[in-house]
């Protein structure tokens, strides 16, 4: 039975974790993840949660401790954000390569410098090639549901990959919203016992972990990992459907909003999707054929599913909340354009960057993107489409 509560993204993530009951929570909190850790620690302190909390002395050590706990067969949770995620960089790759089911809640925040607190996907995007499953959430409800699913996905025998659940700093992590939360027993039953399977502490089958590999074996080990993550898309969709069958809220690789008969579409991730849906409703009431594709799964990238969803559109505006200097567009733009390259009738794809460092986005910016899309459609094949920064003072 679902119960409606008014909670922030941080509070619901902490609630999901206390319901999933990990063996170990490794913490080196950084704003804006602090409240997650505080809530978990409070549950441990009042005796309602038997999770070992490890207070570490650096972010890199926090991820290293996750490796150790997961190698021992534990269910492991940690938090990260901004430069904390970058400080974990090396160990993120080790976690995915050793196939350890660590779940990390990453509250996406801007990277320095200048030091900033606002929402920005640059932190997670810099580690998108680390072999982790990456999911981005729109609101606290989605964050709650996705953290619960994340443990199932990470510990699935065919995947065994660490999972990063992203939500936008402050917009999602600190905003109180209505959230439907489930009974702890139901969540526990859905997630099941820790399925990590293997443990270095298993003396019946002793093993060597993290050993050296020469050029005669390294490539095969990596292909083994690549293939598993490629298969993960299917399982992520299955888990999303099973979650829906049980709790009534269905999830897939992305959410298509009024996309079926649309001519023009926005494509984005995270908290901005709410504003985009409002704008689309307004456009629709005026007869505009616009839709939205809200991407949820960044890694493994659902290129085939996206290709299918965007075929037949006239133009797509890809809105990135991250941008790296010296690139033709944001990381999402590069993926989308690559995914659509071999379609017969390719929509015009335009690159936009918005909301860096927590800057807001308004209807007039969506209007601007729509005007460009309509123009771009007429001039298809002629536009060089340089990246455009929305809501920046010029």
């Amino acid at each position, binding site marked *: 039975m679902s119960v409606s509560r008014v909670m922030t993204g941080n509070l619901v993530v902490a609630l999901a974790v206390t319901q999933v009951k990990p063996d170990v929570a490794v913490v080196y909190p950084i704003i804006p993840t602090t409240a997650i850790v505080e809530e978990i620690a409070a549950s441990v302190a009042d005796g309602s949660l038997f999770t070992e909390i490890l207070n570490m002395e650096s972010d890199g050590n926090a991820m290293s401790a996750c490796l150790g706990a997961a190698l021992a067969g534990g269910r492991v949770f940690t938090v990260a954000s901004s430069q904390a995620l970058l400080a974990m960089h090396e160990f993120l790759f080790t976690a995915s390569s*050793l196939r350890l089911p660590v779940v990390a809640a990453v509250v996406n925040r801007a990277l320095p410098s200048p030091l900033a607190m606002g929402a920005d996907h640059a932190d997670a995007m810099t580690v998108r090639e680390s072999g982790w499953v990456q999911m981005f959430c729109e609101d606290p409800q989605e964050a709650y549901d996705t953290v619960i699913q994340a443990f199932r996905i990470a510990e699935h025998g065919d995947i065994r990959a660490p999972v990063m659940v992203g939500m936008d700093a402050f917009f999602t992590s600190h905003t109180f919203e209505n959230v439907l939360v489930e009974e702890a027993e139901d969540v526990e039953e859905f997630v099941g016992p820790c399925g990590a399977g293997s443990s270095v502490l298993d003396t019946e089958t*002793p093993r060597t*972990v*993290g050993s050296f*590999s020469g050029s005669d*074996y390294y*490539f*095969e080990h990596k292909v083994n*990992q690549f293939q598993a993550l490629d298969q993960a898309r299917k399982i992520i969709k299955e888990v999303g459907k099973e979650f829906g069958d049980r709790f009534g809220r269905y999830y897939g690789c992305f959410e298509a909003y009024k996309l079926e008969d649309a001519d023009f579409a926005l494509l984005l991730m995270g908290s901005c999707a709410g504003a985009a849906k409002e704008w689309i409703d307004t456009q629709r009431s005026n007869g505009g054929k616009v839709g939205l594709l809200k991407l949820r799964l960044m890694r493994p990238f659902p290129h085939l599913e996206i290709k299918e969803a965007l075929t037949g559109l006239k133009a797509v505006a890809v809105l990135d909340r991250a941008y790296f200097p010296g690139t033709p567009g944001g990381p999402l733009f590069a993926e989308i354009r690559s995914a659509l390259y071999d379609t017969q009738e390719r929509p015009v794809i335009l690159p936009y960057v918005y909301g860096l460092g927590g800057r807001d986005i308004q209807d007039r910016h969506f209007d601007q993107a729509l005007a460009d899309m309509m123009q771009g459609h007429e001039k298809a094949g002629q536009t060089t489409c340089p990246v455009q920064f929305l809501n920046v003072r010029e």
Partner: protein
Amino acid sequence: MSLKKWHELEPGGVNLEAGSAVKNFTGVLRRGFKPVFTPEHCINCFFCWVFCPENAIIIGYEKVVGINYDYCKGCGICENECPVQKKPLPLVMVEEEMELW
């Protein structure tokens, strides 16, 4: 020795086979020089055996017997650590014809 395919490997690069490093013949790393051992000149102090990074010094009963060239990578540490000063020396590095790739 046939090498395994990617789908035959344990996930995460886990190695379930104890002592599998024996299959890694580090002798192929030797480039140009190899140690040559003469038992008559050896004082059997076992320094070479202690310092050899590849366990390539073969030991008999209270005696150094020889060198296992399957694993000796020709680093020369044994020659360096050998305390015998007076010639003829028990351990000397001699030039070896290089196997070209």
